[in-house]
């Protein structure tokens, strides 16, 4: 179980070593100490290993993650798990702006709050936030599920495509073309499925969530909606 101290080992060496791992590697659990807010820690991983980071991370932690499990025992800076392809990223603390930005698959779990633009342009990633999300979350969100236990800030889902947003708390305001939609059994099942994958074991009731999604009025330009563009 390799343990790497980033006060001693240069970040570039750590990332290079992680990139050299093959899917059959025996080094399946890595521990990183003293991240001290450095950027791009454990970015570009592409094997099914676990990387545990003891402390707060800077921007783009686990960026473009594929197959790996990354656990941040602290807070995460801008763009955690940005463009994630698959795998699991778990932030024990809070996440800064653009968490899960343009993510295409996998699961991002944030135990604290996520800041503005959570799930911006998401393309299939699932995101679970135990706390609240900030303004412009799910901006232009194309696909995937965003599940928020707390509240959402202004302009939720502005210009949204087909992503599904589930919020248990209040929504300060909805963005262009984003409306509340009917919660049906399939949506409750979807919430349950995402939460189970995220490690929740029935503590949270899908019935308590409201669903938000696209009104689909911006799909073809219509002069009567010109103000929304």
């Amino acid at each position, binding site marked *: 179980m390799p343990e790497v101290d980033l006060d001693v080992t240069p970040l570039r060496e750590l990332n290079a070593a992680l990139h050299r791992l093959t899917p059959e590697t025996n080094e399946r659990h890595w521990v990183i100490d003293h991240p001290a807010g450095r950027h791009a820690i454990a970015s570009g991983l592409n094997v099914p290993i676990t990387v545990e980071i003891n402390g707060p991370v800077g921007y783009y932690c686990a960026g473009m993650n594929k197959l790996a499990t990354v656990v941040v025992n602290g807070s995460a800076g801008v763009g955690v798990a940005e463009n994630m392809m698959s795998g699991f990223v778990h932030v024990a603390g809070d996440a800064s702006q653009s968490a899960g930005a343009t993510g295409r698959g996998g699961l991002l779990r944030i135990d604290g709050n996520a800041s503005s633009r959570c799930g911006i342009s998401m393309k299939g990633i699932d995101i679970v936030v135990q706390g609240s999300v900030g303004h412009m979350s799910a901006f232009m969100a194309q696909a995937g599920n965003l599940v928020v236990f707390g509240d959402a800030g202004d302009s939720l889902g502005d210009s949204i495509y*087909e992503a599904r947003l589930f919020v248990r708390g209040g929504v300060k305001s909805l963005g262009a073309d984003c409306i509340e939609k009917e919660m049906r059994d399939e949506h409750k099942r979807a919430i349950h499925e995402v939460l189970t994958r995220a490690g929740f074991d029935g503590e949270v009731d899908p019935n308590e969530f409201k669903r938000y999604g696209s009104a689909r009025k911006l799909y073809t330009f219509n002069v009567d909606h010109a103000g929304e563009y």
Partner: protein
Amino acid sequence: MDATPRTTPRKSATFDDYTLSEIRRAAASGIYDIRGGGAKRKVPHFDDLLFLGASMSRYPLEGYREKCATDVWLGTRFAEKPLHLKIPITIAGMSFGSLSAQAKESLGRGASQMGTSTTTGDGGMTEEERGHSTILVYQLLPSRYGMNPDDLRRADAIEIVIGQGAKPGGGGMLLGQKISDRVAEMRTLPKGIDQRSACRHPDWTGPDDLEIKIQELREITDWQKPIYIKVGASRPYYDTALAVKSGADVVVLDGMQGGTAATQEVFIEHVGLPILGAIRPAVQALQDLGMHRKVQLIVSGGIRSGADVAKALALGADAVSIGTAALVALGDNDPLYENDYQDLGTTAGAYDDWHEGRCPAGITTQDPGLAARLDPVLGGRRLANYLSVLTLETQTIARACGKSHVHNLEPEDLVALTVEAAAMAKVPLAGTDWIPGSKSDR
């Protein structure tokens, strides 16, 4: 008595035929006009510059026997694997989606044959493109359609797109007619809708945060690939300086004549600078930072002949990029299809409604029937021929100026035909010492 003669009917220069038709169109539709291509109106360009050939004080090189080298290294600042191109002409970013698969394949074949690169566009990398291009530059755009680390790793360079000449400050645009099944899948969009695109990147704004983003891309690719930053010509001095400070290996500068697949007409014609006015400030920024030739500069926007290539290099660029010209080489706007152009309400040479996806040449379309008209092998050969001519022309001019490498062309090899061109390119008006607006040392 004879009737009073009438004056000759006179049309307005301000409200000309085109303008009148546009106002009528706007009144009928309620939506801005969208089209492809770059700025069409006349702006100061390379035609206004001339080379000073060999004479009593300068001696030319013989063709063929006396070499005039054309190769260029891109990405030498930080990348472990910089690119070595045989010619200083690359193919600009154009998306699969805006172009047919056959067009992308043609570009790859032609570029590879000549030892240069192609660039992906706002839609991601296709297998065909990676397969057919020996050197492939992968764009990172605000939309991030199709972005993934595997393609990042199999690219030869990464181009972070901040903007392009046709629409500096605008995002991508692809209308429903071109969002086919395949395009929809690559972009994770519903089929047939009009794509709305972001104009800012989702996870960084500003050169200070861009620096961190570049760091991430380098970490993911183990510092191997050159990282380009592409901007539309806007504030070229500052943009270039900031690109250097953000950590770029290469700066790509696109002037207003640079084409787009689709955007608002007003954006194309009224935002951004002609490339002629953008090159010297960009080079000045590099020189002020001691980075000229260390951070390479690629310029684009209206490159048509080897004369344009040579002039861009003489003004200080390391290479040029072609987009529109490459498509024309493949057959875009060819009079061969005049009947089809007439059916579309236009004529060969004027066709720019590429967003409608009905390109008779099979280039800017997703329609399988139309796309089949373009034979990628033939297309590749045509592009290779054209690139070859561009290169030979550049060498001809360079030799006439006594240069054994095209990079040794310099501003002092040029003069201008007009005051505007002299001021913008900072070269003297032909036959004089005068550079408008400059102190004597340039």
